């Protein structure tokens, strides 16, 4: 279904035949391809951005982090990559995938960024996340093995909502976050939530498959946004704040529609 592009393109991203696999590890699928397509679409900005530390939370098969390392490749030398997964099999499969492509990332078997939050705070220039976003019963969240790749609890937001504050902590002042979301996850509400933390956002890729509608959102710190906006919205919910609230969601829905017509693929 997905054309992986010309040779020129595919040499810049991971090749499916070189991606390792394991029965307990999520294989690259539409969501992974959409995330890599978003990174490719933003590649020239990434090259200009010249990140020092890049990180993937929930690396699964390693397809995304290997692709990121390949597309930045020799043009941005000296980048270091860090990838985590709560599934031991996934970090091992990622290791094999990276090796097969001749690239390296430091791998850590941990929950999101547990153990890294203190020392890595404010150091990550690019973070990529394809979270477990599928709405499931709450008790399926946090199970071992492949379920950890998709089980997202109510509205698929349980793990996303855990990741966002951690991403905010780890991202550098110039840090960028790329995240996969589903329409069911309420992306406009996620953007608003991140706006309260001082982030601007843009949908880089929007794609509908037979089963789901995916949005790949890029977040970056916008120093024009007051990070204390949250207090206005949640604590002191005055009439003007409510209007702002509504206005912001409209802005985001407009940007959703707009990006729908400028899909990268």
């Amino acid at each position, binding site marked *: 279904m997905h054309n992986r592009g010309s040779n020129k393109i595919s040499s810049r991203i991971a090749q499916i035949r070189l991606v390792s696999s394991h029965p307990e590890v999520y294989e690259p699928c539409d969501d992974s391809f959409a995330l890599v397509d978003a990174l490719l679409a933003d590649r020239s900005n990434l090259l200009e951005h010249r990140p020092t530390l890049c990180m993937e939370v929930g690396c699964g098969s390693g397809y995304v982090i290997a692709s990121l390392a390949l597309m930045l490749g020799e043009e941005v030398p000296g980048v270091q990559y860090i990838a985590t997964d709560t599934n031991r099999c996934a970090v091992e499969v990622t290791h094999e995938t990276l090796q097969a492509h001749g690239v390296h990332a430091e791998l850590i078997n941990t929950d999101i960024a547990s153990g*890294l939050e203190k*020392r890595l705070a404010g*150091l990550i220039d690019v973070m990529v996340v394809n979270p477990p976003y599928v709405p499931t019963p709450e008790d399926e969240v946090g199970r071992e093995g492949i379920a950890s790749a998709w089980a997202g609890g109510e509205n698929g937001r349980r793990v996303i909502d855990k990741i966002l504050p951690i991403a905010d902590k780890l991202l550098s002042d110039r840090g960028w976050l790329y995240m996969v979301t589903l329409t069911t996850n309420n992306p406009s509400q996620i953007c608003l939530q991140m706006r309260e933390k001082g982030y601007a956002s843009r949908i880089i890729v929007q794609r509908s498959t037979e089963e789901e509608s995916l949005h790949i959102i890029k977040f970056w710190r916008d120093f024009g946004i007051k990070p204390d906006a949250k207090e206005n919205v949640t604590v002191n919910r005055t009439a003007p704040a409510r209007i702002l609230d509504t206005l912001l969601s409209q802005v985001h829905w407009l940007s959703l529609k707009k990006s729908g017509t400028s899909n990268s693929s």
Partner: protein
Amino acid sequence: MRLLTHNMLSSNIKGVTNGFPLLIEVEKVIEKPVDFNPDFLKNMFLKVDWKALVDASRSLGYADLPEETPESSVIDSDDFLRKFHHALLELHLEEGALVCPETERKFPVTKGIPNMLLHEDEV
């Protein structure tokens, strides 16, 4: 696991206040050559905890880093940068453990991958 990663890891056990740096138990160390990139090193020099890096590199059998935190002018020295590069990126703890300095809880490192997953009563 590179020592860069060791420098960024702390014990994540609930209630631990001094979880950094993790001590290292060595079973197997490997060396892998990495392209030398002065810009990256100069950037990271400001961010690494020097004493943690020196102690970790000694645990792995590399004793060429100066013990005292060097003056920032040292980053213009090629000789220094080469040593820093080697310690930070080329030495790997392949098998062993990271040990919480407060509780002595061990986080195993196998195939170069540290396992920082906590048990239910540690979260």
